[in-house]
């Protein structure tokens, strides 16, 4: 990783070398406005980072191309590079240098998923993000500079975010997307903010940063051309005839002589990602670090969308068994890992794995727009916090299960067992239920089912209250209710079916 500094020598060099640049073609469209500033992030170790998160790269590791008899090294980590391994080397040569080398086969799908994640991550800086497969992300950030306190601060932040995710990247800023890519790939510690300053740094760009086909680069090298400055000195027509018009277009795009509209990255509507575990985990506790990483990604995803979720699913994927599935339903929207972590932890504490887990899958429910909460404006204290109720609900449900926590409501119904219902806790008062003005007292406790009272020998206190209704739905009741007192002094609500004969039933306790 390197620090980005403003280009020190641009103005003088630019004026000297401008003459060397071929003149713009007469029919070229106007150059893109100077208003654009592109941030390019190039990830040289993406094939490796996609398979092994940075923190697990303690050992020297390489990724090799799958359909390649030589098994060329595509990417290697820092440790491997220190021991003399470089991309392009055959695997045998690499193993000869480092016998204990960890070798992984390249997985394009994982790389695409990581790049997608990076695109999502970049959306926190600007809505204009585009992916540049195989290993780069572009973001137009001119409009965001003020918001982030200038170009340097934005780059610093981006670098900090990437390295905290264990990703190695090189960043560059340039007025055209292609030039930004060149600078990033060339790992030049440069920021170029004006189109007319671009030719001045062309001499410092090696041909490799163009990512052109190998044979093209080899041919150019054979012509004695080592950098982009020398390349643009070639006559345009000859270049186009020899290498095709597409590469010439690329050069024009790079120098801002040709507009290069890019497809904007559009984020998927839900979070759905798979996380490999470093080793098969037999207990839920062992996946916590990975889960933590997943929550951090989820948070970044949600932050970029200014959204929250109310449903989070966690699947533990096993080699042979069906996945172990967990679902977390929240009473209020959540976005931050700090909010989700304790809930998930409670939930996981109750979960047992039937087989060792190989990977985790984290999926969100639908994304919901999150109203901006001004953290710090309201103290997270006692009753001043309107979210404390929702937080409590989530916490209890995470550990005890969804159905173990509920509220109750009144229902306008004369049959006692139907005069209430279980309801979702919400604190908002239900509609007032019309009742006959005077109703005999009802017990505070209700039994789930009336219980037969065998050998009842208590005392009847008041009654009967005749409840005879419900004939219309076939579940009619014909009962005489009494308030009674048990031997232990408990006031009970008991009834006898009509016509009498079936004995007494206990239905409620006055409490």
């Amino acid at each position, binding site marked *: 990783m390197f620090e980005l500094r403003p280009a020190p020598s641009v103005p003088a060099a630019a004026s000297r070398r401008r003459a060397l640049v071929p003149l713009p073609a007469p029919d070229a469209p106007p150059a893109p406005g100077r208003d654009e500033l592109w941030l390019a992030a190039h990830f040289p170790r993406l094939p490796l980072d996609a398979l092994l998160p940075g923190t697990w790269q303690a050992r020297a590791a390489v990724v090799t191309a799958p359909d390649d008899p030589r098994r060329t090294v595509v990417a290697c980590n820092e440790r491997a590079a220190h021991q003399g391994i470089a991309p392009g080397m055959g695997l045998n040569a690499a193993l000869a240098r480092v016998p204990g080398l960890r070798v992984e086969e390249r997985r394009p799908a994982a790389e695409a998923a990581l790049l997608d994640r990076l695109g999502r991550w970049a959306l926190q800086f600007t809505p204009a993000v585009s992916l540049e497969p195989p290993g780069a992300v572009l973001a137009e950030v001119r409009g965001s500079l003020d918001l982030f306190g200038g170009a340097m601060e934005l780059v610093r932040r981006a670098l900090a975010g990437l390295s905290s995710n264990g990703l190695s990247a090189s960043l560059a800023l340039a007025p055209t997307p292609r030039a930004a890519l060149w600078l990033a790939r060339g790992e030049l510690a440069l920021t170029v903010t004006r189109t007319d300053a671009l030719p001045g740094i062309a001499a410092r760009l090696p041909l490799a940063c163009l990512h052109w086909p190998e044979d093209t680069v080899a041919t150019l090298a054979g012509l004695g051309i080592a950098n982009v400055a020398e390349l643009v000195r070639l006559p345009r027509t000859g270049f186009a005839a020899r290498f095709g018009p597409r590469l010439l277009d690329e050069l024009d795009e790079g120098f801002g002589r040709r507009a290069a509209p890019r497809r904007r990255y559009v984020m998927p509507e839900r979070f759905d990602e798979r996380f490999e575990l470093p080793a098969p985990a037999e207990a839920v506790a062992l996946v916590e670090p990975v889960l933590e990483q997943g929550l951090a990604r989820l948070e970044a995803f949600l932050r970029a969308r200014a959204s929250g979720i109310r449903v989070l699913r966690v699947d533990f994927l096993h080699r042979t068994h069906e996945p172990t599935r967990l679902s977390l339903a929240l009473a209020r929207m959540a976005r931050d890992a700090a909010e989700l972590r304790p809930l998930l932890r409670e939930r996981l504490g109750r979960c047992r794995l039937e087989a060792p887990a190989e990977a985790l899958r984290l999926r969100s429910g639908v994304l919901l727009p999150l109203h901006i909460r001004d953290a710090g404006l309201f103290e997270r204290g006692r009753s001043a916090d309107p979210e404390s109720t929702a937080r*409590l609900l989530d916490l*209890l449900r995470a*550990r005890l*299960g969804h159905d*173990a926590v509920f*509220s109750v409501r009144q229902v306008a119904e004369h049959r006692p067992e139907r005069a209430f219902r279980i309801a979702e806790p919400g604190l908002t008062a239900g509609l007032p*239920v019309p009742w006959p003005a005077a109703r005999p007292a009802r*017990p505070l406790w209700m039994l789930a089912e009336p219980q037969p009272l065998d050998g009842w020998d208590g005392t009847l206190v008041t009654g009967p209250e005749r409840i005879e209704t419900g004939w219309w739905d076939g579940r009619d009741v014909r009962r005489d209710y009494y308030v009674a007192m048990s031997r232990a*002094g408990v006031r009970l609500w008991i009834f006898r079916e009509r016509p009498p004969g079936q004995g007494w039933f206990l239905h409620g306790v006055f409490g």
Partner: protein
Amino acid sequence: MNGVAELLRHPALWRGGDAGAPDTVPTGFRALDARLPGGGWPLATLIELLVPAAGVGEIRLLLPALKRLAMTESAVPRWIAWLAPPHLPYAPALADAGLDPARMLVVRPRAGSDRLWAMEQALRSGACAAVLGWAGAADGTALRRLKLAAEEGGTPAFLLRPATHRGDGSPAALRLALAVQGFGLDVEILKSRGGAPARVERLLIH
């Protein structure tokens, strides 16, 4: 005169003179209030009620205070939490007593060990106006945790336990034993922080 006395007991009312007295909410029973320091249930602490059998009148004893606690609210409504109650609270009876059923949060953990945990969470959250919890055996540490959580969350914790635990030590600020006497309910104050043991007879008439 009576109205003023009533008003002065309002928990939301703070008087300069009673800074040292504990915050309380009237029990709704004058005979009991007279025996309790501060003239009511202490707020933000653990209150233990020992009952000979579930249903002897313990809820009716608490109802007036619950109603008051539910009404004297800040802008944010809070719950009355019922943790592991022996039966379902019956919404029509609550409504008859002047308690909005929507304010009730019923928690029925399957495992006994989750009861005290859930009660602690409810207390600590500050999201409840009052927490009623049913527990059998609970060691001193668990009870101290509850008391601490009640103090932290500013929530009164009413812990209902079988009368067989009367002999156990308890960190509760207030400890009452209920007993049925004929058609009435006697309340014995076993322990009262800042007060003295006492007995109030025939508090509730069945």
